[in-house]
């Protein structure tokens, strides 16, 4: 029954743990709609035929007043049905919106027109999200420019990705295989090409993939814009005098080092803690006084209006690229952000390579 209806309604496969129940509600609502509307249309048709004028003259027609109890029953009943749908829907919605506590976090950064994923254990990837089957995954998403929307039809999830906010979505893939990621909020010229893939792997494969991903980062780096941008960031940092106070090698000068800080938590002077991410770093550049790192003087000038957006992002990329550098190591050249690129295979969009994952066969081959 489920399969029949799913195919009749052209719904994609149910690849996440919540898909099935959402579809069940979907069937209920749509079938009721079709039935209700068909009945309404049929009744109309029957009346149109049954009460058509048979004489040339216009007869007087009776004034029919509907009994009030009938109206109350019909509309009360309808309202009750709608409210029941709302109730079920809202319970499901809460479920879709609130990730289970043990979900594995993955960080998603959307920008025109690509998806970047960062894993807790270090690796990053573009447009290809690799997840383990049977384990809830929580996506913590933000955007670098405009609003995008993370949509995986097979998982029945969608969440707008809003700049300046970290919104979450979660899912649990129930079988190995790939599913398409689509951007569902209009975001500019290449909105329709902002697609990607989720690759769900079984536990073993996932572990193997992780190992491979964590291994020394020696992938054909020339493509990623991270490298060039990070280089540029180094230039900017020197030109703008950042390096007078900040180091790239882990040593503390006047200000904190930039090495190995990205993704860490920073203790603040007022006793709190913040996560060092793009937004915090940007804020530190534009309004250094908003949050003061513990143990450092509040001396850094604001670079609002001084750094161009392009320079700002170059520095961000530089600091990101230094995430792997442990504060003890001294490393030029900077680590290249990991990007898995192999045979472009069935690319999700022209011009951009789809990732294929080392150590596994994506596409539900098992």
């Amino acid at each position, binding site marked *: 029954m489920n399969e029949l209806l799913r195919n009749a309604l052209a719904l994609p496969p149910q690849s996440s743990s919540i898909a099935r129940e959402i579809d069940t509600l979907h069937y209920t609502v749509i079938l009721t709609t079709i039935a209700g509307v068909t009945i309404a249309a049929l009744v109309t048709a029957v009346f149109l035929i049954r009460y058509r004028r048979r004489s040339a003259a216009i007869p007087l027609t009776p004034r029919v007043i509907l009994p009030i109890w009938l109206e109350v029953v019909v509309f009360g009943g309808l309202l009750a049905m709608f409210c029941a749908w709302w109730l079920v829907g809202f319970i499901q919605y809460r479920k879709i919106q609130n990730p289970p506590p043990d979900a594995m*976090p993955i*960080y998603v950064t959307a920008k025109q027109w690509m998806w970047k994923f960062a894993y*807790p*254990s270090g690796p990053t990837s573009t447009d290809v999200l690799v997840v383990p089957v049977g384990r809830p995954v929580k996506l*913590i998403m*933000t955007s670098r420019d405009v609003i995008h929307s993370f949509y995986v039809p097979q998982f029945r999830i969608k969440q707008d990705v809003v700049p*300046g*906010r*970290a*919104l*979450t979505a979660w899912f649990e893939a129930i079988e190995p295989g790939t599913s398409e990621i689509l951007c569902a909020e209009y975001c500019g010229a290449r909105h329709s090409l902002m697609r990607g893939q989720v690759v769900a792997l079984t536990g073993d494969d996932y572990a193997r993939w992780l190992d491979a991903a964590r291994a020394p980062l020696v992938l054909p780096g020339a493509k990623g814009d991270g490298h060039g941008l990070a280089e540029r960031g180094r230039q900017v940092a020197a030109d703008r005098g950042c390096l007078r106070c900040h180091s790239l090698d882990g040593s503390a000068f006047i200000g904190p080092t930039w090495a190995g800080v990205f*993704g860490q*938590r920073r203790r603040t002077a007022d006793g709190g803690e*913040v*996560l060092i*991410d793009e*937004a*915090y770093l940007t*804020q530190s550049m534009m309004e250094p006084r908003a949050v003061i790192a513990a143990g450092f003087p509040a001396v850094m000038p604001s670079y609002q209006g001084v750094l161009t957006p392009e320079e700002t992002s170059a520095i961000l990329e530089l600091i990101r690229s230094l995430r792997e550098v442990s504060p003890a190591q001294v490393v030029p050249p900077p680590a290249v952000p990991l990007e898995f690129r192999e045979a472009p295979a069935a690319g999700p969009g022209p011009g951009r390579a789809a990732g294929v994952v080392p150590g596994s066969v994506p596409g539900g081959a098992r």
Partner: protein
Amino acid sequence: MARPNDELSDDELSSDEHAPGALGYVLVWLALIVLATLTLFASRAVTGGWGLVVALAIAGAKALLVLAFFMHLAGGRPVHRLTFAAAMAFLVLLILGILADVGTRSIASSYVDDMGGRP
């Protein structure tokens, strides 16, 4: 709903609405000035969340005075009161609808909290 037009009394049709008269206007004005001054002091005396409540309450009182007497809502046709009240109701609704959202989630910059849990 307003009453059907044919029930409009001659009184309502006369262009002279029930106006307070010159002395009345001056008294209303005095009250407005007093209230304005009161706001000024209240803003010093009452701070925190209540400050806003007091300020808005006084502003509301002043607005009512202006509406009722300067703008003749007090003696005018009920439909005028209804019209403006409806507008105010929707104004409040807009604000409430947005606050119901913003007040129960985090807005732009406070999002760092949400990012918790990252290793």
